[in-house]
């Protein structure tokens, strides 16, 4: 009986280890020129890690990151990285010549303005941000 309890405890703890709770307090927004209405999580990761550089119509992707509190939520929910891991990842890209440091803006308003004015742009804002001239992207 004791062994069974230990065995069950082991699997319950494994479950806790592998299942990621998601609390999306983040909206993904894109420029109206972007033809895609939704992205899967893997594509979103690849975009913000600089691996996916083109939309499905082969136009260039320009992504922008946030410097406010929504940044940590976005990274944990969609990119599976902490802010320090994300920063380290881009340091690696910069110091091997594989990428340039992502553009980072301070507020939701600045991000919305950049995304609305830049063809092919994608970014993220808090769910209560006032959206204007951008589209929201659903993450599957």
């Amino acid at each position, binding site marked *: 009986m004791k062994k069974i309890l230990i065995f069950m405890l082991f699997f319950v703890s494994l479950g806790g280890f592998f299942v990621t709770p998601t609390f999306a307090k983040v909206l993904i927004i894109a420029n109206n020129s972007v033809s895609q209405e939704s992205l899967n999580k893997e594509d979103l990761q690849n975009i913000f890690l600089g691996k996916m550089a083109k939309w499905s119509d082969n136009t260039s992707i320009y992504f922008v990151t946030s410097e406010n509190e929504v940044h940590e939520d976005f990274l944990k929910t969609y990119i599976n990285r902490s802010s320090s891991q994300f*920063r380290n990842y881009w340091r690696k890209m910069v110091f091997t010549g594989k990428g340039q440091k992502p553009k980072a803006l301070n507020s939701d308003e600045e991000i919305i303005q950049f995304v609305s004015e830049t063809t092919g742009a994608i970014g993220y804002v808090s769910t209560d941000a006032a959206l204007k001239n951008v589209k929201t992207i659903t993450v599957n």
Partner: protein
Amino acid sequence: MKKTIILLFMCLSLVSVGAVSAYEGLGNVEIHGFISQGYIQSTDYDYSGIKTEDGSFEFNEMGINFSTTPADGLRLGAQFFARDMGELGNDNIELDWAYGDYRVNNYLGIRAGKVKIALGLYNETRDVDAVRTSIMLPNAIYVEQNRDVYAGLKGVGAYGELPGGFSYQLAYGVGGVSAESNLLIDMATIMEDRLKTGIQSAAAAAYEAGALQLGLPAAIAAAYGQQQGELAAAEVSVESPSSATPLNTQNASLQWAPRFVDGLRLSGTWLFTEIETTMNISTPNLTLAGVNGGNTVTTAVNIDNVSSIVGSVEYTRGDTILSAEYNMIRVDIGNVLINGNPTDIATTEVIGWAVSASHRFTYWFELGAYYSDWNTNVRDRHGKDFEALQGNRHREERWMRDTCLTTRFDLNENWIFKLEGHYMNGLDDVDFGNDPDPDPHWYLFASKLSYSF
């Protein structure tokens, strides 16, 4: 020295721009850099070409890069780099990478110029202290003395993302190497060992046969042969290369991040290179025994194949990163002409593996540990053959097992301080001088302060 000062001045003047993460003052040219200064000390002997027993500040690196995107999908950039690790680097500035990169689509990008070599998870960023927890990477995978061979290649490359979470990198061109590369020094030692073994047995047999012909008793003839064989072997020496030129180099990397386990990354990387070297090889005069020799020759030794395969797995869960890597280096040397006689030096395999774990407890504190196991000759894993040869040789010179505990303190986004300790078991790459009985168990301590922007 003058060049180093210029590079240092450039870094410092950019730092003085203010608390900026990067400088973007030249149109759309981005400038980033890093500089670090460390201190390293060991309890016994000198390690890795550094005067560690007395403690040394010859333990630093610095780099600065410039990049721009002149057109959609096109990126140009270059990085200059200098380091000092005791006998290595000496702060001489080198072109670390410089290439043009054109992204055709998600599946294909093209690079031309000097690119970094992908080997294992961390080879491309091995010089950048700010991107990892530990100061020193596991030596079983990232051998500091071989950096010249593994740093980069001049040529062309392709890369991209494939469906299913796969990504690839390919590169072809001319690699780098220096005569001081540990790989070549180890090869000279192994060549010497094999020549000694071969000549010892050949001379022993020849002298024993001669003694028997003179009518000596078998036991005395055998002892005489054995004695002459050992004397002959003692006269064999292969000096480290006096020159080394890299030739054809190929590099391939395949990574897979499976969708069904977030944070898991599997990687296989491969490097193939050819190196042309020149070595001084001395052999004994055994004319009496019918074996040619008696002089020193400077001969070309072509290393037909240095191939490295590294298999890696990394799992990231929250603030914890676990990784394991296995490294196999195979060196094939063709026939070497010694006194006109083709001598087969054959193949050598070197293996290493490492496991590591790190966890970030707070924004500013990270703790990590790794174990690294390096063996310089898979055919003589326990060093028995090596120790059996004449001279002040110890079987522990065949390996280095490193248990490391490391701490990282992020003072802010730009400044990082690290402190780590190593418990070492082995004498590979250790200078124990004439100590007839060196202790293979010793400690190494390192600290480093880094700035990057």
